[in-house]
């Protein structure tokens, strides 16, 4: 009992001293609670559907950020990983009767292979050239799908895929918890030594290579990791929608993920996730003004990109928090001294 009380007190201390001191951390806690408690406020299957899809796209957007935001490998064909993951999971489920728990991770591994396939030739390319090359890959896969309609379902896609869980609430919990876990893992990766090297590659690859780091290996690793997470999102999508078609490889989906990430703030992980949670349900809500839905959406995105070029959520964070010039620890913006080193923040 005493031990439990000791850990509880310790937890409270951590919450008070580490979490409640920064608005961004409080926001993350509120976000986690919102995700986990949403079904206790509503059991409306439509709302749960929208948020389930939001969770899937949040994983997808964060996986783009891992590759492009952090490592600087501009990918305009990210739907490739999503589509390959979705198709692989669907095919394994339909042809080999594999349960979602096997088909989704195996599908993600196929997406890793796709990541390598794109990553190896892309090693020689940078910037716009890389972006245009990556854009071609989903189109090639669509061509393959149409070439072998007997196996891939062609234009119709693959239907009759097994449901992830029997009820919408269960589906929501499976996907939302996975989203929280996977996004946390991605965030931890970017915060690790590997993440620092990813950052460095984006900033100055030659300098990193001069430091003795095998950048080729790290760039391929970024492609594989990104492919894995996007493939997981694709597999979840396939089992949630119960149909996979060529639309999972659409160019529009590849651009959608870029919009989400830039809107929220690239190279942050939390930015793309928050952007998807802001934009996707909002766009759904815009069906009330159906005729102006697209134009209003475009105006909102354009205004944010013009006035907050680093992304909405990074801008918001900069407004409520600031970094201590001496110890680099973040403090709430209205503090006069740093909470750690007590240096003046004014």
């Amino acid at each position, binding site marked *: 009992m005493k031990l439990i009380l000791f850990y509880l007190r310790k937890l409270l201390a951590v919450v008070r001293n580490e979490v409640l001191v920064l608005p961004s951390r409080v926001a993350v806690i509120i976000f986690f609670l919102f995700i986990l408690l949403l079904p206790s406020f509503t059991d*409306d*299957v*439509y709302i749960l*559907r*929208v948020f389930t*899809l939001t969770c899937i796209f949040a994983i997808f957007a964060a996986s783009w950020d891992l590759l492009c935001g952090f490592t600087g490998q501009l990918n305009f064909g990210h739907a490739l990983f999503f589509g390959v993951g979705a198709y692989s999971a669907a095919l394994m489920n339909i042809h080999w009767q594999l349960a979602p728990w096997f088909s989704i991770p195996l599908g993600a591994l196929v997406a890793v292979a796709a990541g390598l396939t794109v990553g190896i030739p892309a090693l020689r390319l940078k910037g716009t050239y890389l972006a245009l090359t990556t854009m071609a890959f989903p189109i090639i896969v669509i061509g393959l799908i*149409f070439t072998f*309609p007997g196996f891939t379902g*062609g*234009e*119709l*896609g693959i*239907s009759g895929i097994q449901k992830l869980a029997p009820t919408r609430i269960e589906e929501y919990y499976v996907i939302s918890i996975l989203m929280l876990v996977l996004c946390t893992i991605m965030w931890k990766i970017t915060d690790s030594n590997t993440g620092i090297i990813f950052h460095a590659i984006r900033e100055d690859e030659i300098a990193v290579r001069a430091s003795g780091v095998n950048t080729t290996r790290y760039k391929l690793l970024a492609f594989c990791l990104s492919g894995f997470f996007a493939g997981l999102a694709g597999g979840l999508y396939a089992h949630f*929608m*119960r*149909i996979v*078609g*060529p*639309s999972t490889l*659409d160019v*529009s989906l590849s651009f959608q993920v870029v919009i989400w990430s830039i809107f929220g703030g690239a190279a942050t992980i939390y930015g793309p996730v928050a952007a998807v949670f802001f934009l996707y349900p909002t766009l*759904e809500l815009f*069906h009330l003004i*159906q005729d102006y*839905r697209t134009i209003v959406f475009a105006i909102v995105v354009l205004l944010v990109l013009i006035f907050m070029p680093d992304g909405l959520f990074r801008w918001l964070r900069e407004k409520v928090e600031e970094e201590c010039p001496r110890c680099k620890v973040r403090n709430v913006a209205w503090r006069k001294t740093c909470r750690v080193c007590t240096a003046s923040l004014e």
Partner: protein
Amino acid sequence: MKCFKKSMFVSAIIFLFTVSLWATAFGQEIKIGVIGPMKFVQGIGHWNGATMAADELNAKGGVKVGDKMMKIKLIQADSNEFLSVTDATNAMERLITKEKVNFVVGGFRTEAVMAMQDIAMDKRVIFIGCGAAHPELCERVAKYYDQYKYFFRGTPYSSSDLVKAAFIHVGTVGAIVKQSLKIEGPIKVAFVAEKAQWADPMVPAVQATLPKMGMELVGVWRPSPVATDVSAELSAIQRAGAHIIFTIFSSSVGIPFARQGGELKIPAIQVGINVEAQKTEFWQATRGMGNYVITSNTYAEGVEQNELTTPFVEGYKKRYGEIPTYTADTYAAIIYGIVPAIEQTGSLNSDVLVAIMENRVYKVPSGTVRYTKDNLGRPLHDLTFGPGYLTGIATQWQDGKLVGVWPNGWKPAPGVDVTYKGMKPIKLPPWMIKAYKK
């Protein structure tokens, strides 16, 4: 004063309560969801047809359900299905779970309709498809009847029948060309299908069928669905000596192909499927060069499949200023499909209605609906194609007017002659006649 305010407040509450009770008891509505790509011509057709149906029914006092009259309320849902299948499924789920619709009509892109079909079937809501032609949608009904029995095809008939009809049109035109121009030997046909997956199976079908029809295939051309210049293909077709150009176009390439064919005066007649040529704007879009183009169609001004056609076509034209396209058959799906079944059963229960709907044979403005069964006798909920049922029509642009040209003396079986009222003879392009009568 205070007492007066209090009594006013209580009276207001009682009034509101009474009104809401009255609305619940007497103001019940049948909610029909209309789903489609509402920013595109297909979705606009869905909505226009359904609106016309709802207004007509409500003007008559509504629909008799048991011993009470219920008004029709339409709920529009933009599926955005050309751009996002996910949006389409969200729209369907919203219609069913938030708006609590009793029926859904619409849908266009097959991939999206299949995903929407799954949602409607899970919720046991009757969904009448008014746009997608793929047979798989109905094969699901036969294979998994208990799950998919709530789906019915409203329009068009299955894509395999669309192809069958196109071959009949080619055969009819071939006979006219042979007779009018006194062509010796087989009629030469150039096959031009847009480079799209749905048109791929047509190539082997054409290669196998045309020789059996006594025709010669002189070549296959596959321009891009969005090509803006097809003069190279047309020149090659001219060099190949084709008499007929068998077209399969659902996209914008139908306009430049018809326009340039007219500009270059290719001595061949275009027959087949050209969705652009079904639209009223086609004449302006081709600057009149699309004259003599023949396409499969559903409606044309002055053409009567039965006594229901003219009131519908004229009513639609008066209201929306154009001839209805096939997606406007949401009108028929509501007025002749759903409503009589409700009135017959006095119920809105999907299972009760399905049992009635799948066995009904009824007239619609484009013909007569009878739902088919597969080879094993399982209900497909697909439309019967053929004389006496739905045949579609073929229309030709003749000097700025879209006129019906088929079926006009069509003899599908010995002793059977199908001719719809208002049909006109097929005209061959004058430059074609000139080229072959030298």
